[in-house]
């Protein structure tokens, strides 16, 4: 389970160019392992979605990737940098290796085309040799995979409920048997019951089909339940990374701690919700030093002056954990 699937190295993403540009993602290193569910959490504006869209160059203008690499490790063959692909190569890479389930369940489907058209056009683009009948059969299969009756192929998006639409999107994401599925707040627009149904189904599908998931949400309690490892983002940087269980048991960064206590856990003992005082930083004028220090209850002298580096904390024997906080300086 520890083979590497995707490696993000020193990724920097800006919005805009020149003096007015805003640094939305700063020097992010992140590794996705084969078959795992990696959760990425943070408040809105933390850069988590920017990171996800930046990976495959899908950020809308004025987004610009200002540095870093996204190394993809295919099962066979040499690893390569996704950001260095030509347009043509990138088109072939997209969806075949990394597919995305988008935030808005409502707007991800083209309102003027039938579900069948939207499921088959991706097959046609990537497998030009396939027959129409084969593509339709595959589309039926995909709907069955997410538990939607095949007669819905002829429906238009507006004829489906929000939950069904998001299921269609998940089915679509699996159309080319990708290695990585990126989920950007896939269930936020849905009610809690449907949300859990869909995520449960997804975990089941992952076990059957063996893809890895980058799961982005602001709801840390969902991640604790559904992911293997969790990375927390704040102000465009990753501030803590740990196994889901480890983070839930013992979060080191005060921000992770705050985030964990702002959502009610569905299971386990009742806890008092504390939330985090203050509001996310303005990306235009970031605080000096650790971006979290103005809101941090434990902030002390070095926090204001220097940015803490992400690293394994001192005196923690457990593997697989890193944090960027002056309370837990790197060893």
């Amino acid at each position: 389970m520890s083979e590497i699937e995707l490696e993000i190295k020193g990724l920097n993403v800006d919005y805009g160019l020149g003096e007015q540009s805003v640094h939305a993602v700063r020097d992010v290193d992140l590794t996705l392992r084969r078959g795992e569910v990696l959760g990425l959490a943070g408040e809105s504006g933390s850069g988590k979605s920017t990171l996800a869209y930046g990976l495959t160059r899908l950020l809308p203008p004025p987004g610009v990737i200002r540095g870093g690499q996204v190394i993809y490790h295919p099962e066979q063959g040499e690893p390569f940098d996704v950001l260095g692909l030509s347009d043509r190569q990138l088109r072939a890479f997209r969806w075949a290796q990394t597919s995305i389930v988008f935030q808005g369940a409502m707007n991800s489907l083209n309102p003027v085309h039938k579900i069948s058209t939207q499921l088959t056009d991706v097959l046609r683009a990537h497998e030009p040799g396939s027959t129409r009948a084969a593509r339709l059969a595959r589309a039926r299969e995909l709907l069955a995979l997410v538990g939607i009756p095949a007669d819905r192929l002829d429906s238009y998006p507006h004829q489906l409920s929000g939950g069904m639409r998001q299921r269609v999107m998940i089915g679509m994401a699996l159309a080319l048997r990708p290695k990585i599925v990126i989920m950007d707040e896939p269930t936020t627009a849905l009610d809690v019951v449907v949300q859990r149904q869909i995520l449960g189904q997804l975990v089941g599908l992952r076990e059957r089909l063996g893809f890895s998931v980058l799961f982005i949400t602001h709801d840390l309690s969902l991640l604790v339940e559904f992911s293997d490892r969790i990375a927390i983002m704040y102000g465009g940087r990753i501030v803590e990374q740990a196994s889901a269980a480890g983070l839930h048991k013992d979060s080191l960064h005060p921000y992770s701690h705050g985030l964990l206590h702002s959502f009610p856990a569905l299971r386990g003992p009742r806890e008092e919700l504390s939330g985090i005082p203050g509001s996310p930083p303005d990306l235009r004028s970031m605080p000096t030093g650790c971006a979290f220090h103005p809101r941090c209850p434990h902030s002390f002298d070095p926090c204001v002056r220097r940015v803490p580096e992400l690293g394994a904390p001192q005196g923690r024997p457990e593997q697989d954990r890193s944090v960027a906080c002056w309370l837990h300086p790197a060893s």
Partner: protein
Amino acid sequence: MRLNAKTKIGLVLLAGFALFAVIGPWIAPYDPTERGGDMLQPPSAQHWFGTTHLGQDILSQVLTGTRGVLLVGFVAGVVATVLAVLVGIASGYLTGLAAEGLSAVSNVFLVIPALPLIIIVASTLPGTGDWTIALVIGLTSWAWGARVLRAQTLSLRRRDYVQAARATGEPTWRIIGFEILPNLTAVIASGFVGTVIFAVLSEITLAFIGVSDISDWNWGTILFWAQSQQALAQGAWWWFVPAGLAIALLGTALSLLNFGIDEFVSPRLRACAGTAKVRMRVGFTPVLRREGGPGE
């Protein structure tokens, strides 16, 4: 509010026209209707824009005509905008039959071709001076603005702060005056500028086909005489080119102003800063590595 280049150019041009509207008749070198000895002369030092078949100075006609054009355009714009605001907000904010009726009426006026309507109304009237024409245009061209304002009001009406104001029992006039109107300023402004463009084109058209009183000078009147005296067949291009260019310039100034307002309202239309070197493409985020690695 920072003005972009388009808005600035538009405003400067417009100020120029306004200036000519005020001082035009005084700085005109000749009386526009006075006949002279030089008949149908091309542009010269005496007559910068040439002369008509009666030896009238065309530059003087254009300068004198500016006032009428701007007056009619702005009066019609004001009349139509006031009507549009009243009908648009009322049909968007109120509910029930009255609102439905108002909205239906504005749709009807949108579909009826405006120019033929204006022609039959104006030609039925006994007098057709500048003010009459301005009123007729204003009274028949409010529907577009009303429709846009209605849509905006409908969406504002559902906003939290408006709902809250209604829940606390604030009087309707206060909600409309203090919560809704301020948020519609840009839309109203852009509707006003749009109506002025339309009004200017309409009045010139009316003068051109001879519906308006031809004793009032306006750019359309010049074109009316040029057309009726076969200026084209005689090769007298100077007779209709200056007036047409003046119309185009005024129209462009107003359109530029409206682009500025539109971009202010919907930022997506704004060109991104610094796109000169890098083209922002939807779907393929540019990769510009600072370190200069393998990229684009």
